[in-house]
Each structure stands twice: as structure tokens, then as C-alpha cells.
């Protein structure tokens, strides 16, 4: 699938037997995953690498790819050109990251075995990537599978086409061993060629279905005069000889014709063989058009291979002891049917290249005499229908290069998966299964929190090139170190995942990306896009969503508030409570009555610096400001500047004369039912403060962690006071769920004079949330804790002031209910704040 074709906009359903996460919210397969023919969940394994969870990374890598060790080294990696970072400072090195994990775990990992559970069996011809992947998928689905391989090794082109300096034999063994461990019912019959050793009819008798993966084993001819000379060889044949162990002596100069991966491997092999000094690659298009993977091309150039672009061979001539390759120069003409610009010979540009050998790497083809005889072959491959992977014989399927022409390992693997899918349905009697689609999974790994992610350049492993003893074919490059692997992993954009943006969710961003890649004249794509956009989003206010401070917004000052406080870059935050008790700012603190002593001390020091009173049953320190929460058992202390009686446990008469001069007296109320009593008592006895406890129990440690606070206490207290027209007679202080300065400003705006913070300060002081409580086991020292408390309170004061300034106020306490609006009905209902827009809350009835 091209990354931005219509299927990305309207993705067809994946067959239900696969795990596919595309229907889930907050996930869109990233371009790299879509570009991967087997749908590898690259973003997840990259993120796991950054987290150093290598086993999880291994699982993500191998889930859809039985040849991950091989792919880690030699995959064509279509993911990398698709990587969005390619356009910035180079793609994430996805293949190298895979290699890093496979080098770590590939040889030792033992997968769970999938036993044979079905009666039917499948015979597969060819143990290349298509055949073996199909074998894997069919085996894991429970079928008995037999693979018939004409050579003496399994692996096909992975073994015979790729030289050992890129893919050491041990790596292939790793994957094959793992395949056998996972698929105990899989038998590979070596040295068994179709036609020579076994007939198709025998296979059809022996098995319930047959899959032909005969490969494109034979090199195509260049089609120029003189190529019959024995010094002209085909690229795959040449590689096969070398991979069989030969190290032939070559002439001084070798010309390789072609620009694909076979040409790259052939030229680099030649360069390593005895006596070969000079290797020239002749390619008929330009460097921009060459199909070879950039990294192989670079490797070849780094190893001293010469490239002649825009040069096309026209004849081979024997020239004494050597050869002369006659060529012309080319220009690029109009695009041909595959979209690439056709090379056009330039008149008068004829020239010759002298050499001792020509390796023609201009394409491969499949051949099989028996299939030909049976009329199942096209010119160069098995005649196969892509939609069903079937041949003309209803029992016989085909896949891979031998069915669809020369391609890449990973594409052949995709063919194997497709074929396995259609064979499985055929064997289950389903002739019309849902069309196969590569399934896409996500493991939802969090985004790497590496602060350097925007800066880190591509990390390249050390490149050895030819090495000290080229003829031994030592491996050309090293694997990553842990450090470089982590750096490379940090570079991933994570196109699959949500960032913090709500309106530009991953799905929405992909829509915009697709729109930006849609030809305005492409009506089908435009229609598809529109049908996606018309889909209904999830209601951001689900039925069970409680009223929340989060759903209250401030109305900013614009034209209508210009004349209020015109120089509003500053904001006043100090005030007085009750009968003249000054407070430097409205943020009080509670919750540390029973925390470890070092935490208490650190918080006490911090509160002194920012002049925040502590609200609790005991003082935090001898010399800090303290508002005492009284219980029946404790008498008022002269050390407290405010004493607060529990509304649940009010004495018959609060001593309104105050036990100690200058001390303020109030009530704290935790039960909504007690609000009327508390208000009445407070007014009757001319008390200073009413502390409204929305947490349900201010004296219970970290009661706020039980959930959202109950704002009805505040709403009811204000309603009562307003009804009595006595709002100015007692100061309201709020406790419960204040997480930020913004929360504080909202509660102040609703009519309180101060707020008490508990859990937020506890978290700053090193508390970790566990089982609805805070646990202090972090290794912060006392200074760190104090500083954190000071910083958080300062930050929250700053935030609250900023909200005041936004509303056009230069005094924090001037925020009014009128400066607030609700954005959910339930919040509007519970706080009495009107909803934005029409303000038509009658719709509430609909809920």
C-alpha cells in the first residue's frame, strides 16, 4: 500500500482472525508501518528500545516477521523512506534498530511451539522468504506443512542472493532455527526440485493445497549482441556461485550492468574477489532514479566502486584478451508505464568500456519446465491472480518473485502471508474471504522522553567496508551500541500516537496530511476523505463525567474590559481574613499531620518562606503560622492564629469572645448536610471563617485522592449567605481538589477568600500516589522538599494571578463569578455558573 493512497483514508477492514488496532481510537498506523509490507509495528519497538524493554521490542519485531534477524541486516526497509523525519534531518534508522534487538536476543530466544491441530496439510515449493513465511503462517494456524526446496539449504534468495559480508550465515540459521522451534509440524525437504524430484501431481495428492514459491532464480539477458560470451555472466548466478563458497579469480576490471540490489551485491562481491581491482557499475538512468537502496549504494561507493550513470549498454565485443562493452549516453525522456522516466540514447555518444568480465544484473525470472509444460507459466513467472493468489489449478496457489516478478525479501514475505491467508480460507471451504489486508497493531508504548530528540542526528553504526581480509567477506558494519541505539530510538516522531493536542488528534492530523497529499482532481479520494470527516467523534463529555473545575473557563478581558485596570501586567495577591488577619496570598496548606517527620520539617520550612499558614490538628513547627482543626478531644491552642471547630461536632456554644486575643474562630464543614447549620452558627456567633471541605474529610490524610471534590458545599453555602444577604459577614475558605493556581483562581472567583491545598503540596514534597494515599519513599532530601513546596506555591500564585490578569483584574480577589463560564451542563448545574454560548441550560432536561 502506498502510504498516502486512498486506503490510508478509508482503510479496508482487516480479516477478523488478525489482531488489528486500526479501528481503535487514538491510533493511526504510522507511515513507516504502512510502508512495511508485513505491517511491522515499528513505532512500538522503537519506543520499547528507548525504554530498554528489549524483550517487548523483540516481540513487536517478530510478531509478523519470522525473518527478523535477516531483515535487521538486509531488509530493503521501505519504512525508512516513508519516515516523516526523512524530510527533516534523515529517517529514523529503523532497520539498524531492529538489528540491534535481534543481535541481542535473536539467537537465544525460544518461542512457544505451535502444534499441528488440523488434519489438512499444505505442500510448499521453495524455501525462500515467500514459501517459509507462508509455511510459518499456515503452521501457526495448525496445518501440517511440508516445504520442498531444490537446493541444499533453506532461505532462497536470502541465502543464495545475498553475500555473507551483508548477511553472515549464522544470522540466517537464527531465523530458521526459531522457525523450526515455533513450528514443530514444519518439514523442509532439501534437494527436492519440482519436476526433477517430485511432480506437481504428487504434491496435489499428498497435500490438500499446494503453494508454488519457485522464486526468480535466473538472470535475465541484457538483449544486446555479444552477450553469449562466456565472460558475460548473470548477476544472480554469479552471487549463487560465491554464496556456495567459491572465490573465483576475476579479471582486473569488471563491469556490472544494472542499478538494483543484485547489481549492488554483485559489484561489492566482485571488488572482494582475487585480482579484481576496478569495478564499474553501468546504469542507464541517473543517480536520482537508481533503485538500489541508498545505504547499499553508499557502501559500494565507499568501497571504491565506480558508477557510470546515464549509460546504456548496446553490445559486448571480444577485444583480444578482454571485452569491450559498447555503450551510449542517455537522457531522461517521458515517464513510461511504471512512472519512471525512460532513458533515451543521445546520438553520437557511443563509447566503449574495456573490461575482463561483464555481470548483467538487469532483472531475474522464474523458470520451471514442469509448470511450463502444464501451461501454468507466463514468460517469466507462474501465472497467478493477485486477488486470490491462485493459479489456474484450483488447488494450487503461488506467491513471491516466482509469481509476481523480482522484488524484495519483505515483499516476498508479504506474498507468503497473503497466500497463507487465502489457502487457509480455501481449506476451510470459504471461497470468498474478505480481501486480505495487512493488519496493523500498536502496543501503545509511551513516547520517549528524551530531551534531545529534536536535536539528535542520525546515528550510524561503525562501517568497516572491505575489511582487512576482503576475501573472507567480513561483515561490513557493526551493530549499534546501547547508547547509539537509544539515541536513534529517541529520534522517532511517533506518528502513530497522540501528542497532547486534543483538536489535532493523531486521526485528525492524518486527515490533514492526507488532504495535503490529495490531488484536487482525484474525486474518489476527495469523496473518501469527506466520508471520514463526516464521522461523528466521541462525545468529550461522557455521561458519567462528573462536574469538574476543569470545565470552568475564565472570560478574558477584551474590548469590553479595556478601562478596568489598564496597566495590568502586575497583580496584587495579599489580603485579610476575618477580623484583620493578613495573609500574603490565598494558598494555605494541609495534610501533613501524620507524615514522616523529615517531610513535616521540610514542608514547615517551605511554608515559612512563602508565608503560607498550615491547616491541621497540630502545628507543623513551633514558629510557623497555624490554623488549628479542632476535634472534640483537643482544646484550642494559643499557638494557632485561627481555630476551626468541626461542624459535625459543634459545642453548644462556641466561645465567640475568643479564647485568645487576636485569634480568629471558625467552623470547618465536611458534610454537605451540615452546611446550613455551619452557616447559621457562623453568622449567629459572628465567626470569622467558614472552611468548606469538599474532600469529605480534611482530617483524613489525603482524602482528596478519593476523587473529584464535592462543590455543592460551596454552592449551597454561597446560596444561603446570598439569601440572607450576609455574604460579607463571614469569609469562606475552600479545601478539596485544588491542583493548580488555576483551580485556586476559580474557587476564589466563586466567592472564597483563600484555598487550602493538600495533595498537590504532598506530591511536590515527594509523595507518590498509591491506593488513594500518598507514600513518601522518594530519596529527596529536606532542602529539595522545601524548595519544591516553595516553588509549587509560588508557581500556583503566579498562575492564579495570571488568570486574574486575563480577566482584566490587577487584584486576585476581584475575580467574580461573572468572570467564569461552564462548558459542561453538569458543571453548570452544580456550580450555578452559566454555560457558554446561548446560556440555554434548559437542555439540561435532555440529559
Amino acid at each position, binding site marked *: 500500500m502506498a502510504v498516502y493512497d486512498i486506503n490510508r483514508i478509508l482503510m479496508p477492514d482487516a480479516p477478523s482472525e488478525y489482531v488489528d488496532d486500526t479501528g481503535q481510537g487514538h491510533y493511526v498506523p504510522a507511515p513507516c508501518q504502512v510502508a512495511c509490507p508485513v505491517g511491522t509495528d515499528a513505532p512500538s519497538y522503537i519506543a520499547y528500545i528507548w525504554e530498554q524493554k528489549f524483550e517487548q521490542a523483540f516481540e513487536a519485531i517478530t510478531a509478523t516477521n519470522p525473518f527478523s534477524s535477516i531483515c535487521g541486516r538486509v531488509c530493503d526497509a521501505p519504512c525508512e523512506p516513508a519516515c516523516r523525519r526523512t524530510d527533516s534531518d534523515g529517517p529514523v534508522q529503523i532497520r539498524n534498530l531492529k538489528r540491534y534487538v535481534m543481535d541481542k536476543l535473536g539467537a537465544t530466544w525460544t518461542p512457544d511451539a505451535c502444534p499441528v491441530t488440523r488434519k489438512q496439510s499444505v505442500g510448499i515449493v521453495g524455501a525462500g522468504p515467500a514459501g517459509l513465511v507462508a509455511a510459518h503462517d499456515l503452521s501457526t494456524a495448525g496445518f501440517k506443512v511440508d516445504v520442498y526446496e531444490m537446493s541444499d539449504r533453506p532461505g532462497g534468495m536470502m541465502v543464495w542472493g545475498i553475500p555473507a559480508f551483508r548477511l553472515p550465515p549464522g544470522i540466517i540459521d537464527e531465523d530458521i532455527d526459531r522457525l523450526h522451534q515455533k513450528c514443530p509440524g514444519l518439514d523442509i525437504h532439501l534437494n527436492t526440485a519440482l519436476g526433477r524430484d517430485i511432480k506437481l501431481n504428487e504434491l496435489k495428492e499428498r497435500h490438500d493445497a499446494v503453494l508454488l514459491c519457485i522464486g526468480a532464480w535466473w538472470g535475465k539477458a541484457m538483449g544486446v549482441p555479444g552477450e553469449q560470451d562466456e565472460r558475460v555472466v548473470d548477476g544472480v548466478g554469479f552471487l549463487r556461485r560465491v554464496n556456495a563458497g567459491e572465490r573465483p579469480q576475476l579479471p582486473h576490471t569488471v563491469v556490472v550492468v544494472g542499478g538494483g540490489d543484485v547489481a549492488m551485491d554483485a559489484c561489492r562481491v566482485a571488488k572482494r574477489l582475487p585480482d579484481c581491482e576496478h569495478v564499474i557499475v553501468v546504469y542507464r538512468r541517473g543517480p536520482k532514479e537508481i533503485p538500489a537502496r541508498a545505504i547499499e549504494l553508499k557502501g559500494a561507493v565507499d568501497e571504491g566502486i565506480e558508477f557510470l550513470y546515464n549509460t546504456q549498454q548496446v553490445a559486448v565485443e571480444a577485444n583480444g584478451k578482454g571485452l569491450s562493452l559498447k555503450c551510449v549516453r542517455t537522457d531522461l525522456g517521458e515517464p513510461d508505464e511504471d512512472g519512471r522516466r525512460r532513458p533515451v540514447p543521445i546520438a553520437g555518444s557511443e563509447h566503449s568500456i574495456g573490461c575482463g568480465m561483464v555481470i548483467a544484473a538487469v532483472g531475474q525470472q522464474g523458470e520451471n519446465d514442469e509448470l511450463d509444460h502444464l501451461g501454468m507459466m507466463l514468460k517469466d513467472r507462474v501465472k497467478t491472480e493477485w486477488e486470490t493468489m491462485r493459479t489456474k489449478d484450483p488447488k494450487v496457489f503461488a506467491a513471491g518473485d516466482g509469481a509476481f516478478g523480482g522484488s524484495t525479501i519483505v515483499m516476498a514475505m508479504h506474498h507468503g502471508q497473503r497466500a497463507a491467508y487465502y489457502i487457509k480460507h480455501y481449506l476451510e471451504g470459504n471461497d470468498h474471504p474478505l480481501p486480505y489486508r495487512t493488519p496493523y497493531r500498536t502496543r501503545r508504548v509511551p513516547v520517549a522522553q528524551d530531551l534531545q530528540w529534536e536535536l539528535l542526528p542520525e546515528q550510524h553504526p561503525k562501517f568497516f567496508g572491505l575489511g582487512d581480509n576482503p576475501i573472507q567477506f567480513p561483515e561490513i558494519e557493526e551493530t549499534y551500541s546501547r547508547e547509539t541505539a537509544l539515541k536513534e530510538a529517541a529520534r522517532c516522531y511517533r506518528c502513530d500516537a497522540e501528542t*497532547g493536542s486534543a483538536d489535532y488528534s493523531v486521526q485528525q492530523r492524518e486527515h490533514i496530511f492526507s488532504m495535503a497529499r*490529495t490531488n484536487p482532481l482525484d474525486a474518489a479520494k476527495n469523496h473518501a476523505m469527506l466520508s471520514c470527516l*463526516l464521522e461523528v467523534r466521541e462525545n468529550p463529555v461522557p455521561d458519567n463525567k462528573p462536574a469538574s473545575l476543569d470545565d470552568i473557563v475564565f472570560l*478574558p478581558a477584551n474590548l469590553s474590559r479595556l478601562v478596568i485596570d489598564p496597566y495590568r501586567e502586575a497583580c496584587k495577591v495579599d489580603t485579610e481574613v476575618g477580623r484583620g488577619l493578613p495573609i500574603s496570598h490565598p494558598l494555605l496548606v494541609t495534610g501533613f499531620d501524620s507524615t514522616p517527620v523529615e517531610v513535616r520539617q521540610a514542608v514547615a520550612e517551605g511554608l515559612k518562606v512563602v508565608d503560607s499558614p498550615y491547616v491541621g490538628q497540630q502545628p507543623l513547627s513551633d514558629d510557623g503560622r497555624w490554623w488549628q482543626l479542632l476535634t472534640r478531644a483537643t482544646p484550642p491552642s494559643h499557638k494557632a492564629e485561627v481555630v476551626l471547630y468541626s461542624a459535625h461536632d459543634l459545642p453548644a456554644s462556641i466561645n465567640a469572645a475568643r479564647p485568645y486575643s487576636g485569634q480568629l474562630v471558625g467552623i470547618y464543614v465536611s458534610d454537605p448536610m451540615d452546611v446550613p447549620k455551619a452557616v447559621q452558627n457562623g453568622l449567629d456567633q459572628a465567626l470569622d471563617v467558614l472552611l468548606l471541605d469538599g474532600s469529605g474529610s480534611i482530617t483524613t490524610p489525603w482524602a482528596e485522592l478519593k476523587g473529584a471534590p464535592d462543590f455543592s458545599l460551596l454552592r449551597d453555602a454561597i446560596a444561603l449567605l446570598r439569601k440572607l444577604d450576609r455574604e460579607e459577614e463571614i469569609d469562606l475558605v475552600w479545601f478539596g481538589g485544588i491542583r493548580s493556581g*488555576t483551580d485556586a483562581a476559580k474557587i476564589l472567583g466563586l466567592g472564597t477568600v483563600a484555598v487550602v491545598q493538600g495533595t498537590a503540596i504532598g506530591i511536590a514534597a515527594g509523595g507518590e500516589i498509591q491506593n488513594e494515599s500518598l507514600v513518601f519513599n522518594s530519596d529527596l532530601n529536606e532542602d529539595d522538599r522545601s524548595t519544591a513546596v516553595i516553588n509549587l506555591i509560588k508557581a500556583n500564585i503566579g498562575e492564579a494571578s495570571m488568570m486574574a490578569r486575563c480577566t482584566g483584574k490587577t487584584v486576585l480577589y476581584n475575580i467574580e463569578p461573572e468572570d467564569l463560564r461552564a462548558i459542561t451542563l453538569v458543571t453548570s448545574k452544580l456550580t450555578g455558573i452559566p454555560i457558554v454560548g446561548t446560556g440555554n441550560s434548559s437542555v439540561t432536561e435532555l440529559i
Partner: protein
Amino acid sequence: MVTIDLAQIPVRDANEQIRNYGEAGEDVEVINPDARHHIGVGLTSPISVHVKGSAGYFCAGLTDQATFYIDNNVGWGLGDNIYSGTVVVGGNAGAIPAIGIRGAEIIIKGNMGSRAGQVMKAGTLLCAGNANFMAGYMLYGGRIIILGDSGERVGEDMTGGEIFVGGKVQDLGSDAKLTDMTEAEHDSVREFLDRYEIPFKGNFQKIVNAGQKLRYGSPERQMRSIPFFTFSGASPYWNPKVQEDIHIKSQSGRYRIRGYGTARALPHLSDLAFAKDLSRINDSADVISKVHMYTEIGGLNGANPLKLSMPVMVSPMSYGALSRSTKHAIGLASAMSDIAENTGEGGMSDAQRSAAKQLIFQCLGGRLGWNIHDMKRADGLEIYISQGAKPGLGGQLMAKKVTKELADIRGIPAGIDLRSPSRHPDILGADDLVIKVEEFREATGYRLPVSVKLGAGRVRDDIKIAVKDGFDFIELDGMQGSTGAGSSEVIDFVGIPTLAAIIEAEEALAEIGRRQDTQIVLMGGMRDGVDAIKGLCLGADAIGFGTSVIIAGGCIACMQCHVGQCVTGIATQDPNHEKRYKPEIEAQNIHRFFESVRWQIAAITHALGYDDVRQLNRGDLVALTPEAAAITGLPYRPVGSESQSEVLAS
């Protein structure tokens, strides 16, 4: 020397004549000025204008190279934003003389009003008498010489520049300090006084920025944002985002800053659906030719309107928040799709001007990059009152993004943490605003539409004032709008959603009977043609796209715009990062995005049975959620209800 008699002709005609004489090199004498506003505004020729009497607001404002002599007193905003030239006032000056000047020498022989030299960038302001309060307020550069007393809070929140006080320094403003004056500065001030023959024997005290504010000991730890769905919706109250905020604030000691728009899902146009069956969408092949989409914006008061090939424009985004390459790409794309681009705050670059076919020039309180020459080459002028992402606050640009080139274009020193004021120095009320709008019109010969940009808050009131102030159109930005840097709490909790904003605006206009002739451009979280068409149905005349434009051009929404090292080269001024951005390629992508929007608008309009986008109306929509129904007053038809399922089935 020619004489212009303001008792005979209006200021508008007089200014036209002054500019013509200026081009002819002829000096001018203005008689009977009678404290009229805007005298000489917009003059860009090196002639001399002698005002024989007193002048009103903005005398000599928005000029370059000219010399003004005013015999008596002047009103406020003397020499507003002068680029270069000289102004000599014989008497007193009102408030904010030399506001935002970018050069020039201004001499006031009497006293001067409050906030002299506010947001001034360069040049010299001399007051021979006393200054009123807050002289040098938010001064960015240049010098103020006060021979008399300083007034209260002198140098309040100044960022750069110097203030020399010959009399008493009454009290220093926030973040200002006294320092020693160098010999060279002393000589330079003396030379200036001698040149204007102003006798002064006393000594000076020098006031500069103290460097205490806007500089933070511990920078905020950079984090990649927590995905919204882990903390919005029905998730726990003390969620991971809350905890992260607490941890980070307890390290930095201040509010958090980030880029982008809201991190919480708010009521949105997405919560509306179309009332009619849209099955006709599928039989519309060439819909674009079947629907009239051409839209003119801003012609209400006779200015040349913006001519949009569809009711869409680019929302204001600054060169500063965005890289030059990004602005270039957006300009190119806007021209290809034949819509309007907007400079955002911070000035107009040549590349941007030449790329965009139609360009709105935005004016903010800091007057960064604001100047008469770019005004004249703009296609529209916009007074920014606030923006949806951070209404009520000023802009913030981290020092890392204030490069030499950027500083030059904005007229400020390079490398400062740049904070622009939260409001315009010369707009303290609706009445001032009328005079400001008139100044812009005077300066540009009444040729350009003048708009106002409002972050959505008290929309009902604000819209009525904007209409009364005579703007040519209104840009209304809901709280889902984005920013390059702002307080994360302000982004998420200040302002009202775009959906609510357009409803309130429409109701307000209906109340004052101005629905028919007032044009509103709605922006803030607009992502595609479906959002756009819902905005149009609700009454908007055009739709502004901002964030979606940069996403179309490669933004990955990591929300780290404020850090300044944007991985894609969009929100950065670092050349090593900017080179990652390929303007020609991204311009094509952005263009295709706009063309998709065009197709979507046409397809839906057509499917609704119309052939003109102006036929779209409220009746075309229903609400899918109780919130959306309450906010809009539209019929509530949740998914699954009978009529809704028909719509969805189509």
C-alpha cells in the same frame, strides 16, 4: 511653502494634500489646526510641516523622514510609530508621546503625559519639563531624556534602552534600576541638547532594566506532552498530567509554558451534524463548478475588500513563532489557492509579501515590526486585541527565537526574552479605538480594510463594541486557537470554545440589528472543510485556518513550539533546524490542503441543495451532544436517534 487651512477642509483631505506636497518636495504650513486629530499621519517624504497651533491625537503618527513643528500643545500618541524624522512641540504633550517609535527625534518643550515612550524601539524622546507616571513603560530601545522630574514608576518593565533624568527620580518602576552614566552618553546627551538649543546645566541620573523579571533560574524541564485522552474525559481527578504539572512547577517555580492549542477536548463544531440527508454528496462529480464560493471581505466602509476565491483565509501566525521558510511556504500556498495570508505579530518580510497575493498586516500592542511602509504595501490591516489561545495576555517569544534578523524586523534588540504587552498603549477604551482605526485609515488613504482580532471571551459585549468602533470586519478566535508559546493553563482554561463564540457573536449582532452587514471571520481549531462549513452555517462569513495549515506543511503537533528547536523546521529560528523545511514542497502540500477544503465546502453545500455558500444557515445543523445543544440552541439529535441515524446512514 503652502498653507493648508483646517478651518476650510477636513483632516482627511488635508492629509491627502500633505502627502502629495510631500511627494513634490513642498513644505507645508497648517493653520487653524484647533487640536484636530491625525494631522500629518502617514507622511513619508522629507518635508517640513509647521502646525500653527495645537494638534490632537496622533499628530505626526506613522510617518517617516518628515519634520514637524507644532507651536502649542499636542494630544496623546504624539509621533506614534515614527520611523525617522523630527518632531518639535512648543508646548505640552498628552499621554504616550513617542509611542512605539522606531527612530526619530522628538522634542517636547513643556511637560509630557504618562507612559512616554511606551514600547519605543529606537530614537530619542526629550522632554524639557516634567514627565507624568510610567515614562519608559515597556521600553525596548532608544533613549528618553527628561530634564525635569521623572514621574512615578519610571522605567516600569523596560526591556532595553536608557532613561536619563535631570530632575528628581520620583520612584523607579518594576524591574528598573539606577546606574552610572558613561562619558560618551553624557557627551551624546549634551550634543543633543545643544543641537536643539535647549539650555540645561544639571546632572543626569540614568535608568536601565534591572534584569530581574523575565529571567528564570531554573528553566522548565522539556517534556513531550502527555496524550490528552489520559487526562480528559472521565479519567481520575489526580491524573498523570496533573502530577506532571505539579512536579515540573515544583522545580521551576512558575507556570508551565508550551505551544499549540488546547490539550483538553472541548465542545467543538465536531459535536454538530447536518440536519439533512447528505446522500447527494455521492453523485456530485464536479462540485466546485456548481457552487459559488467567491467571497469579498472588508468592503463595508468603502475600502478595497479582500477577494477570496472561497470563504477561507490563513489565520494570523507570526514570523517569529514560525520560521521564515514556513511563512514563505504559507504565503505561496495562499496565493496558489487565491485566499488571504496574515503576517501575525512581528512584521512583514519581503519574501512573505511577494509570496502572498493578499496579505493582512497585524498590529499588536508591542508594535513589533509595525511601520508605515509595510502598512502601505498590505492588503488589509488588523488590530489585534487578543487571541483565542491566550486572550488577555501579551505575547511571549523566548530569547532563543529572537535572532538578529528577527530583531531587526521587529525593531528590537536581538536575544532578549521578548514579552509584548497585553494591550495597546493607545487603546484603553472603545473611544480610543475609534480614533486608532481612523489613524490607520488616514495613514493608508482609506484604501485598506481594517479588522479587529478578538480572542473569544465576553463575545456578546466585545462584538457590539467592535461594530460600534467601525471595523470593516471582525476576526473571532475561539479558545481552540493555537500559539507558539503561552501558559498551558491559559491555553486550556481562558476563553470560550469557538462553537460558543460564533453563537454569542450572532446573537449580539441580531440584538443590535447588524447581522446583515457585519462580517465575521471565525477561527480557532478549524481543521477541514466540514468544520468550515459548520462555521459558515452558524453565521461566519469566512473561516481562518492556522494550525491545520502548518500540519499540512509537515508539523507533527509535538507541542514543543516554545522550545525553539522544532524538529521539522517550522517553529524555530535556528538555521540548522530551519533548513529541514522545504518551502516549495510544503507550499504545494498546503495548497492541496486548501483545495481539499474547497472541495469539501463545495460538496457539502451542493449536497445540502444550495449553489452558493451564502445560502448555508443554522437550519442545516443539529446538535449531537447535550452540551452542543445547550451552547448553540440547535435541536438535539444524538447519534442513534431516528432522524440522526438517517443522516449517518447516508
